[in-house]
């Protein structure tokens, strides 16, 4: 096994912090970078990197937690689907406690909704073949890392001729919201830390528009503390030298080219649609819907009555997701909203920005910027 040890070696981390500090001092200014990916948000909080980076480098958490950016309407419809006779929902654990307009899947389960938490969409397919009398609906959320896995599961369902397996697609893709954030003058980003595992599938080439269209430095990074700090160091360097390109620092997993097998499968089943992002609104071409030829697998097409969505009052998840405010600036944070009784989705997912702050930054005296 390739050792992860050096990537957590305190000696190497110390020197990375030191290198970032001296680069930032050379530049003589402060930097705002966005970590796009929620797994980065989680890792940064867990390792306490934000505090050690100090005031020179501000890390803003972006819209990279699929659960957090999923609008409440998605879950409202999911619950409505789950209430149809003979339907059983299957979901990743990430979605289980996210509040909808009414309750979460967890609280609805107590009211009789049938819902299984699975590790893999293939486990949902197995469930469907074991219960041919039921209709199993998989709640398909996730970015370019996860959507191909769902596509592959659909391909398996076809190969194994499992007719009672359906999905309700809430998939989203990463580049469109980044385009929006890159052009947001209010955010004034100095660079982007790009999602490592999305890039395994898409290749890093897909992010070159950040440099060419917006002159923004960016770096693809892995998920250990050293990987993340390497990314930050690269962004400070590019900015200081006035350069802008995509630097791939996760070379052990990411190449310039996409995973073509995954892309083929994804394109076979999904087509881009306009999609609603919590806090950011509808972004053209930012979602993935099942293609019409797979309509028989699409639970999203089933006629159900979905109540008018109710956004939780006072919740500022939307602004948190854009990086416009940090969690403590939301009046509900740690008061009315905590991981045990979340109001907004950002407090639910372990990689949600609010949950990460609540767990890891609250006691570190992390002041709101």
């Amino acid at each position, binding site marked *: *096994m*390739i050792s992860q040890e*050096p*990537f957590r*070696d305190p*000696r*190497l981390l*110390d*020197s*990375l912090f*030191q*290198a970032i500090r*001296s680069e930032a001092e050379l530049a003589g200014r402060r930097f705002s970078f966005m970590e*796009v*990916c*929620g*797994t*980065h948000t989680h890792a940064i909080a867990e390792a306490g990197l934000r505090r050690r980076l100090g005031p020179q480098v501000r890390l803003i958490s972006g819209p*990279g*937690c*699929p659960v957090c950016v999923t609008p409440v309407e998605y879950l409202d419809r999911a619950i409505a689907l789950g209430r149809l006779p003979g339907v059983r929902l299957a979901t*990743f654990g990430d979605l289980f406690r996210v509040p909808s307009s009414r309750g979460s899947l967890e609280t609805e389960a107590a009211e009789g909704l049938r819902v299984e938490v699975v*590790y*893999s*969409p*293939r*486990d949902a397919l197995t469930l469907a073949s074991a219960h041919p009398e039921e209709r199993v609906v998989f709640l398909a959320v*996730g*970015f370019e*890392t*996860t959507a*191909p*896995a769902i596509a*592959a*599961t659909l*391909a*398996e369902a076809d190969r194994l001729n499992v007719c009672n397996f359906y999905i309700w697609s809430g998939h989203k893709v*990463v580049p469109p919201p980044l385009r929006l954030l890159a052009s947001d003058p209010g955010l004034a980003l100095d660079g982007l830390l790009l*999602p490592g*595992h*999305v890039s*395994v*599938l898409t290749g890093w080439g897909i992010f070159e528009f950040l440099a060419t269209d917006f002159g923004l430095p960016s770096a693809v990074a892995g998920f250990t503390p*050293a*990987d993340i700090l*390497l990314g930050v*160091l690269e962004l400070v360097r590019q900015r200081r030298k006035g350069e802008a390109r995509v630097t791939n*620092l996760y*070379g*052990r*997993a*990411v190449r310039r080219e996409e*995973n073509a*097998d*995954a892309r083929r*499968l994804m394109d076979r089943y999904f087509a881009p649609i306009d999609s609603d992002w919590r806090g950011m609104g509808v972004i053209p071409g930012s979602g993935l819907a099942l293609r019409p030829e797979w309509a028989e697998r699409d639970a999203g097409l089933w006629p159900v009555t979905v109540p008018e969505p109710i956004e939780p009052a006072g919740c500022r998840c939307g602004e948190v997701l854009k990086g416009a405010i940090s969690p403590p600036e939301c009046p509900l944070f740690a008061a009315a909203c905590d991981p045990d009784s979340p109001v907004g989705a950002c407090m639910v997912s372990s*990689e949600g920005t609010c949950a990460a702050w609540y767990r890891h930054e609250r006691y570190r005296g992390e002041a709101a910027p």
Partner: protein
Amino acid sequence: MCLAIPMELKERDEYEAIVELGGVQRRVSLLLFPEAAVGDHLLIHAGFAIGRVDAEEARLTIEGLERIAAQARPS
């Protein structure tokens, strides 16, 4: 955004493989990464191999880290 964990490919057939990490095994699909071979370190996400972890590239990154350490603390 996406947890993906490196696991070693132990055996494979046409569509699936047994992968292992720290003595824990799971059957995963190879549909997204059919070229996987025994001994590869694969990134596993939600029961699917999505790519390979390259040992040589990992070594280069670690070398880079060591170079930064050497520059940060000139001896």
